[in-house]
Each structure stands twice: as structure tokens, then as C-alpha cells.
């Protein structure tokens, strides 16, 4: 008997990340999300889709970039938990140093106030917990409303039919 292995998609879920008014930085100063617990039986994902929808602020520079970086953690049972770049467990400011680049989003040549820019990527093997760091290189602060800086994840597993 043969058994097809299909993709099993969890719901698309928002990261908790307060990136409204996030300032421009060329030094990696950004905002981290709250970590997602991928050790839960309902998750234990083997890959994660990331969807970012970001509203730019006032007079952003054209052809500049927003960058999204990965935080991974080890959930060490007894010692201080390791997280990329010394990140904490929850939504907070952070400076990215060595966290892996997930991807960049261009402001495009037609950047204008309030433009919404989009990026989506796949993270293979995210580990037992994961989060993201958003760094704004658009030249100006992002839109002031946290609800207009949306970053979502979708956990994906294989499923034997």
C-alpha cells in the first residue's frame, strides 16, 4: 500500500510585536516579537511560513529595506535559556547582531507615506521556540499604529495519508 505525505497547514497566527512607530536604524536596532512555543504537541512544526504586511510611515525613502531576522531558542530545562542575540521571551526592543536573516522587504521606487509593503518566506526546521526581529531601514519611522505592522506565522507539518 502506498501512503501519500501531504502538507498539514495550521492557522495563520499573528506574532505579538509592537512595531508601531519603529524608528529607522542602520545599526540593527529593532523590535522583537514574543517567542512562539513550538514544543507543544499541537505545533512541533517542521517548517514555518512567515507573512509580513507593514505600513510605512511619513515620507519613507525609496528603494530602501525593512529586514526580518530569526530568533531561535533552546528552552534549556535548568540553565538560562539561549535565544539569538540575547533576546528575551516577549515583545521588546532589541539590537540584532548575529540573528539569521529571514528576508528583506523593499520600500520600492514608489515609496510614499502610508504605503503597505509585503514579504513572505519559509523557515525550515524552526526548533522548539522561535520569534522574529523587525529592523526598519526605510529612512523614517513606521506607521504609528501597532495594528498596521502585521507579522504572521503558519506552522506546517507533513502528514501521512
Amino acid at each position, binding site marked *: 500500500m502506498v501512503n501519500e*505525505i501531504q502538507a*498539514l497547514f495550521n492557522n495563520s497566527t499573528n506574532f505579538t510585536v509592537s512595531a508601531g512607530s519603529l524608528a529607522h536604524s542602520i545599526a*540593527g536596532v529593532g523590535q522583537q516579537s514574543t517567542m512562539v512555543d*513550538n*514544543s507543544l*504537541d499541537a505545533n*512541533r*512544526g*517542521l517548517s514555518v511560513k512567515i507573512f509580513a504586511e507593514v505600513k510605512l510611515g511619513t515620507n519613507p525613502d525609496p528603494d530602501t529595506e525593512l529586514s526580518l531576522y530569526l530568533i*531561535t531558542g*533552546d*528552552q*534549556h*530545562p535548568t*540553565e538560562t535559556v*539561549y*535565544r*539569538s*542575540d*540575547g533576546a528575551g521571551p516577549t515583545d521588546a526592543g532589541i*539590537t540584532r*547582531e*548575529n540573528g*539569521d536573516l529571514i528576508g528583506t522587504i523593499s520600500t520600492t521606487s514608489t515609496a510614499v507615506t502610508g504605503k503597505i509593503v509585503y514579504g513572505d518566506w519559509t523557515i525550515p*526546521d524552526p*526548533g*522548539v521556540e522561535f520569534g522574529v526581529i523587525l529592523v526598519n531601514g526605510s529612512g523614517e519611522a513606521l506607521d504609528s499604529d501597532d495594528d498596521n505592522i502585521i507579522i504572521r506565522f503558519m506552522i506546517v*507539518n*507533513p*502528514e*501521512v*495519508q
Partner: protein
Amino acid sequence: MAVHKINSLAAASVALTTTSLNSKAADATLINAAAASNFDNSVFRFTRFKCFMVLKIGAAGTAFGAGYVGLIRDDQGTPNYSTGNYSGVTSAFTAKNAQHLGSFTNANKVNINDLVYFNFEIYRPGIEFSVFVAQSFALLAPSGSYIRLQGFNREIQ
């Protein structure tokens, strides 16, 4: 017939023995590295590892210096093969012809007791292996640096 989700199976994160990192000098050539003791993968037979490294700075260093980590393989054979003829016990290691695992920087972490974080992955490392670290930015502290491993396999539910 029932369907079966395939989950990620993660072991607990464990520290390698890395006393060779203690008080390790910076090396501008990135040749004179410090290696961890070997990890025996013949029991749990993980196919993938996430590795979590923290280097603690022991003396004022240089900003935006470079570092990298590499892989030492061992075949548990007789006679034994190991990358660079490594002993398997944490010690200095001359890094030549080993597989590169990742590069990192200390950024602005230049002060005593600053911590430099770097994580990397090893896919299909084989039956036994270790990792080594070379860095150019600072003398490391006498203690407080570590490299942890977390093994992963897949599990059919």
C-alpha cells in the same frame, strides 16, 4: 484509514564540554581554534542539531571582529578517522580543511563580561562529531562561555 501527522522531535538542549574556550586568546588568523569534546551520536542518531553558542569576553576587545565555527567529524572506526586528527577531548585545534558551519561577529560587544550570541545548525553530522570556534576579537573569560546542542528527529504521530 487514519492520517498521521509527522512532528519535529526535539531532545533537551545539552552543553558540550568546552573548557578549551576558557581564557582562549583572540587569533587574527582564525586558524588557532578551540574545540569542544566530541558528541557521541550513535545512540540517539539525530539527523539534525541546533547549536547555541555564547562567548563571554574576558578583556577589552576589538569591535566588529570576526569569528567562525566549523565541524569535526569522527567515524568511530579502527583505526580512527577524525577531522584534523582531533583527539575528541576539548583542546586547541588547528582549523584547516574542516567544514564551515557559520560566521559571526561580536558587533559592539567589546567589554569584559559582554556576551556574544551565535546559533547555527548541523545537518547529518554522522555517528560522532564536534565543533570548533575561532575568533579574532578578544581574550575570552576564564568561564561563562558555552556551546549547547539540541538534537532533532522526526516522529510519526
